[in-house]
């Protein structure tokens, strides 16, 4: 399958939305325990309480060459109760889902909130949200991946590995499938009760070509295969066996590719690369908790602060730049019916015509923005990794919307005189305020006079977020828009992971600084 076919296949899957979904059932005994938790918390002195009861199943199949290296299945079950008492948060969780333990944990959460009062200055204000009597939501999967036999999963991976190893010079290959199913019941004292059934999957490969005589090796990962909020059908669509030979050939080609000459280039970044740049340099800095300093000790703050100097004032990029926050794109990793605050997420613009107009918010953050925006409700971006973790602000899908003209990546290449076309995610690093970043990629092509003239390696670009986005001068259209994402985005302390997608068309960036990361490896 060539790149263009792959792009079309992926776009076809993203467009699915007409499936008849089987909604999850509510278990009456769990509902009773939820109501008990809320009542116990209230009677212990909570002004607000919510509970999440979650059962998470995960499965991983890992292989290398022609053998299996790991086959594991996991299940974790438990509940977490969050309360507000005297204006402070408390949270406690346990794996023991019995009435007595529900009571103990609910009281512990209240005791904790009261203990926290001693170190509190500004009581928490919770934004209003409408009641949800009986909400149900399920990921739009066609085939439950947990219903597929292990033999079929292993066979698919070993077939892909064999295809990769047929390519001369490809020495090692690893491949894996990861599946997650989160069955989550949520209830709060604000008259909200929801049951959701969320699926995620991630097929992956990594092919290594080695030149022992020169002491060189190169990897090619399956960067075009996105993790998605879909089922087994996504694994089949991803077609690891069909793509493996091309990836293997590219790993081998990288061994002898020309090492890049450092300097300024026009960069053409395709969606499976650009999604990560969007994630790091747009999605993270527009998290309100970062802007306010709540994440200063680990994830960092944001250069988009304070909000009163940012909203409707800061230009992030060109007029045609529109950034959307949503948790509704079919198959996206962040999609859900209600967030972990019980709020139905909104689809809204964070950057409109190049200007920052909004942040990502949760119920306990909205009051910080109300004096500036007049807005009184949350966008619905609250999430906890598991029942054992307290929920907080996590990013929705943050996507660059396509341009008006339906340009494709080939149009961008054809319009470029001296550039580098970058495919797939590579190494990535950005500072704690999201200014200075450095990104690598999977495969790099030299572009001269509107044409690809050969492969490059040792490429990384360094830039500064506002400079970079204001250097964007061309953007693809609707038919070139694709989603990719991250399965394990870290934030919070203790660290929690979140899965999130980012959609984007390809785009071009003028005159970006490229460095050579080879450190003389290729001259020896």
């Amino acid at each position: 399958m060539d790149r263009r076919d792959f792009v079309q296949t992926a776009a076809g899957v993203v467009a699915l939305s007409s499936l008849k979904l089987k909604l999850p059932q509510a278990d009456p005994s769990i509902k009773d325990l939820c109501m008990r938790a809320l009542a116990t918390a209230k009677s212990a002195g909570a002004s607000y309480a919510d509970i999440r009861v979650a059962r998470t199943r995960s499965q991983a199949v890992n292989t290398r060459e022609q053998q299996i290296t790991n086959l594991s299945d996991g299940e974790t079950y438990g509940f977490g109760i969050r309360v507000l008492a005297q204006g402070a948060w408390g949270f406690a969780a346990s794996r023991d889902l019995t009435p007595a333990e529900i009571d103990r944990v609910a009281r512990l959460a209240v005791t904790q909130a009261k203990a926290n009062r001693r170190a509190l200055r500004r009581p928490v204000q919770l934004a209003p949200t409408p009641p949800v009597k009986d909400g149900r939501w399920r990921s739009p999967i066609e085939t439950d991946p947990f219903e597929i036999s292990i033999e079929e999963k292993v066979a698919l991976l070993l077939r892909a590995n064999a295809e990769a190893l047929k390519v001369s010079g490809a020495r090692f290959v690893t491949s894996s499938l990861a599946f997650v199913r989160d069955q989550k019941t949520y209830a709060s004292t604000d008259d909200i009760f929801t049951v959701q059934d969320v699926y995620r999957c991630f097929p992956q490969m990594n092919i290594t070509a080695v030149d022992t005589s020169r002491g060189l090796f190169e990897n090619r990962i399956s960067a075009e295969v996105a993790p998605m909020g879909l089922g087994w059908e996504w694994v089949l669509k991803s077609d690891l066996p069909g793509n493996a030979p091309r990836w293997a050939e590219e790993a081998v080609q990288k061994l002898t590719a020309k090492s890049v000459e450092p300097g300024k280039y026009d960069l053409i970044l395709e969606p499976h690369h650009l999604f990560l740049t969007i994630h790091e340099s747009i999605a993270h800095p527009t998290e309100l908790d970062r802007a306010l300093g709540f994440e200063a000790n680990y994830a960092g703050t944001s250069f988009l602060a304070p909000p009163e100097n940012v909203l409707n004032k800061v230009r992030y990029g060109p007029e045609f730049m529109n950034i959307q926050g949503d948790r509704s794109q079919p198959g996206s990793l962040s999609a859900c019916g209600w967030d972990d605050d019980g709020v139905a997420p909104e689809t809204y613009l964070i950057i409109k015509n190049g200007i920052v107009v909004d942040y990502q918010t949760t119920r306990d953050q909205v009051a910080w923005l109300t004096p500036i925006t007049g807005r009184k409700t949350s966008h619905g971006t609250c999430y906890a990794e598991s029942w054992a973790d307290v929920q907080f602000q996590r990013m929705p899908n943050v996507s660059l919307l396509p341009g008006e003209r339906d340009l494709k990546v080939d149009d961008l290449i054809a319009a470029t005189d001296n550039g580098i076309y970058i495919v797939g995610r590579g190494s990535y690093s950005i500072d704690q305020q999201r200014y200075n970043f450095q990104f690598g990629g999977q495969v790099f092509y030299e572009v001269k006079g509107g044409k690809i003239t050969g492969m490059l390696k040792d490429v990384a670009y360094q830039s500064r977020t506002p400079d970079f986005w204001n250097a964007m001068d061309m953007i693809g259209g609707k038919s070139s828009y694709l989603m990719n994402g991250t399965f394990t985005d870290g934030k919070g302390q203790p660290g929690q992971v979140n899965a999130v997608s980012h959609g984007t068309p390809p785009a071009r960036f003028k005159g970006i600084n490229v460095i050579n990361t080879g450190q003389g490896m290729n001259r020896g």
Partner: protein
Amino acid sequence: MAEFSGLTRAAARELCERVLALSKSEGCQVNVNSSANGNTRYARNEVTTTGDTDNATVMVSSRFGKRAASVGTNLLDDAGLARAVETSERLAKLAPENPELMPLLPAQVYTDVPAFSEATANLDAVRRADAVRSASSESNRAGLMAAGLVHRVAGAQAVANSAGLFGYHASTTIVHTVTVRSPDGKGSGWAGTAHNDWGRATPATQLATRAVRKAHGTRASTPLDPGKYTVVLEPTAAGNLVSLLAFALNARQADEGRSFFSKRGGGNKIGEKVVDERVTILSDPQDPDLLTAPFTGEGQPVGRTLWIENGVLKSLAYDRFWAEKQGVKPTPFAGGYRLQGSGAAPSLEELIKGVERGLLVTRFWYIRGVDQRTLLYTGITRDGVFLIERGEVSRAVNNFRFNESPIAMLNNLVAVGRPERVSSSESGDVGGPAVVVPPLVVKDFSFTSVSEAV
């Protein structure tokens, strides 16, 4: 003692035995992990969120000949355990043979590691809130804003198998990290502490004072160009980078030709000098500042291992399969490590005095691999970079992005200070290995661009 702080030895053994009694496979291994996880976060000089979570999980690994599969669960009643055992057996029968599967280890002898501290286990929400109040008050008095985490885990792990092996290790870990910033966003300072024992961790007030001093200092930072500089790396900064080398000490990767430790033409670099001769890196579960588990997940005993001695690569980590294939002894890398220098071990202040012109670095962040062939990494400085002139800190400067290899760094060594236990994980929580490292003075450290971030 706290209400729950992990399963006792007897309870863990009983749980393992229940699983093994259910097993119908040719070989069964059980791993138990149990913990009481308590944390309190703060920001803007006040507590924000908090959490107390008790959990216990069992991982059952079943095998039939060379076929194996694992199933994990935290449903520990009879039905939950029976389901986990049955599922792992069903999956194992369906799995293809794994030619690298090694036989279960027979019973082993482990040394007890005294890694459990009552003071840490007892750090409940009230005591954590008190620590937060102490740190926040310090910052508030200085007109600054503190954000941090007090995180403790008290727990126990156990491994058992149908060949008669049983191992148990109880431990506690406490981490307190704090970032203090000026309200105008122009200054930022950090301090952190980690240990098994809350009594040996740096007290909250002292920690905050250190971060406050840095935050004040960086408010007046002045621009400095990127380039190659002599750097004085505080222990945390040194730990951030040395850990990258420690994790690369893998024999198979090296033997397969895809590691810095690969020898051109085949094999690995054991026996070769790879870094400055003053550097020794070792692991020892009994080290009073490491106190890590004395066994691996499969029950392989973990002893004292010299990885690099006086600059020479002495060992790489061999799993049991690769060790057998190569005809060497298995060498697990587990738990943590210590880097120490030879000779005198000066304090950070003494190291600074010896530098004519250089940069003092508090810590690094967002460190990501760029090139595995050279162990080249990129990342960012944060929370305090200071210019040293004629042996004294003269002023704060901007942050930088670096592109540097820990190997190159340890070859460009100027001086090695006194090692200490640090919180070296970027996330500043309990996760990550136990790390004991000294402050280091390194020449020609490569800063490739300026970061405006504070």
